[in-house]
């Protein structure tokens, strides 16, 4: 506490900025941890349910059970596009049939791609703040330290004494800014790398699910 109170105005400001970075970084880490954990868990459960259930409308009715999985959004979009195409065919007096020649599969593929993109965007939200904290917090802390040491040396010059008792407290107060900068940056970098890795797995799962969905649609509906 005395180290913080003994610092100058600029160093105090730097420490407050770093505190803000640290608080928000940890909030994002908690938030993302919960989000990714739920997404992983419910994706696994959704895939089990998807392969066990033969009918799309039955799956569609149970989507709320897996709401946090990104795969449900993909299924929702794909199924929505499928129903639209089916309705269009029914209007043309060929109920339950649509042809690839009319671009039906392409429409569903585009809908799945759009859903994948929007889910990636949602899952990657706030991660840039972690990256920013990880890369800038040490420099901000370093700035505070440099400023603190400058002030300490100025004080030494004014008093005319350079004993350890005079020099050491000023440098100790200045170094705390670097320490806090590292304390803010290290968890942010670790969290960023961890969540990037988890997101890569989720994106791969989404791509795989899109392919599977298109295959099923192609096998079941096309060419009837």
């Amino acid at each position: 506490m005395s180290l913080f109170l003994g610092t100058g105005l600029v160093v105090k400001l730097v420490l407050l900025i770093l505190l803000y970075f640290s608080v928000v970084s940890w909030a994002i880490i908690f938030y993302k941890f919960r989000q990714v954990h739920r997404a992983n868990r419910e994706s696994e459960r959704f895939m089990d349910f998807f392969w066990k259930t033969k009918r799309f409308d039955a799956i569609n009715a149970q989507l709320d059970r897996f709401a946090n999985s990104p795969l449900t959004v993909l299924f929702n979009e794909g199924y929505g596009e499928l129903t639209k195409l089916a309705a269009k065919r029914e209007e043309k007096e060929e109920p339950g049939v649509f042809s690839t020649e009319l671009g039906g599969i392409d429409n569903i593929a585009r809908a799945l791609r759009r859903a994948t993109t929007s889910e990636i965007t949602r899952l990657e939200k706030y991660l840039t703040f972690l990256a920013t904290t990880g890369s800038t917090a040490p420099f901000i802390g370093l700035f505070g330290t440099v400023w603190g040491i400058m002030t300490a040396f100025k004080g030494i010059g004014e008093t005319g004494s350079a004993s350890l008792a005079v020099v050491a407290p000023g440098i100790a107060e200045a170094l705390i800014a670097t320490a806090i900068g590292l304390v803010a940056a290290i968890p942010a970098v670790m969290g960023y790398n961890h969540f990037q890795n988890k997101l890569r797995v989720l994106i791969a799962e989404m791509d795989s699910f899109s392919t599977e969905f298109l295959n099923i649609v192609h096998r079941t509906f096309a060419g009837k």
Partner: protein
Amino acid sequence: MSRPVKPQRENGSLGAMVCYSAVVHLAIWFFLLQVSLSTHFKEAPVYYVDLLNLPVASPQAGRPDVAPGATSSSPAPPPPTPPQPRGMTLPAKAPARPTAATPARQTDPAETAREFEERIARLEQEAAARHQEAALAALRKRADGKGPAGIPGAAGTEAGSDYASYVRSRLEDAFRREDAFRTDPGKVVIVRLTIDRTGRIVNQRYEQRSNDRLFDDAVARAIARAEREFRRPPGGGQFEHGFVFRPQGVGKK
């Protein structure tokens, strides 16, 4: 085909997480504060021991049987050296040492590395045993009370020094922290301190001031700081002595 149902997500907001994070930071802050407070150790007291008169039976005790001003407590002077002859003489040749004694010390060229190591180990053991014996003998001597007791001029209660030196050293330590006022070596402040039997300063009389308010204030602060660590004067009476403060340090008057 049924209409697609949009799944409803229930993700907690980031604001709640920020509040949670702030609480965690506060908790860590208070924890670190507690740890830093609990690990704040007390500075150990400094004892001053007269190295010239060591070893003593009990450096803390001094010599209570001898009055502080007694001169008989000073150590006996060394015996006078016999007068050297004035005339120039040639240095006597040292008798030739028998050569037969040296080969025992020399290393046998045929000695193996193992024998050499064993010999070194044996020598080390002998040296350690000698040191141990000497230390035990010294301890026994001290336990019997036969060792030199006390310090010349000691008051009987302080660690190897008279009380004025003790006070001076405490003042020196306290004054050393006033580095900011050591620029001009010509400043002098002379203070006569009166310390009561409880170790408190009851009177401080400035016999000379430096005409520099900052330096005078530094001296006053050093005295006030040093007073917290003063012990009781020996003999249970009052103590009075003058001290000279210069930017270079503190001396006795």
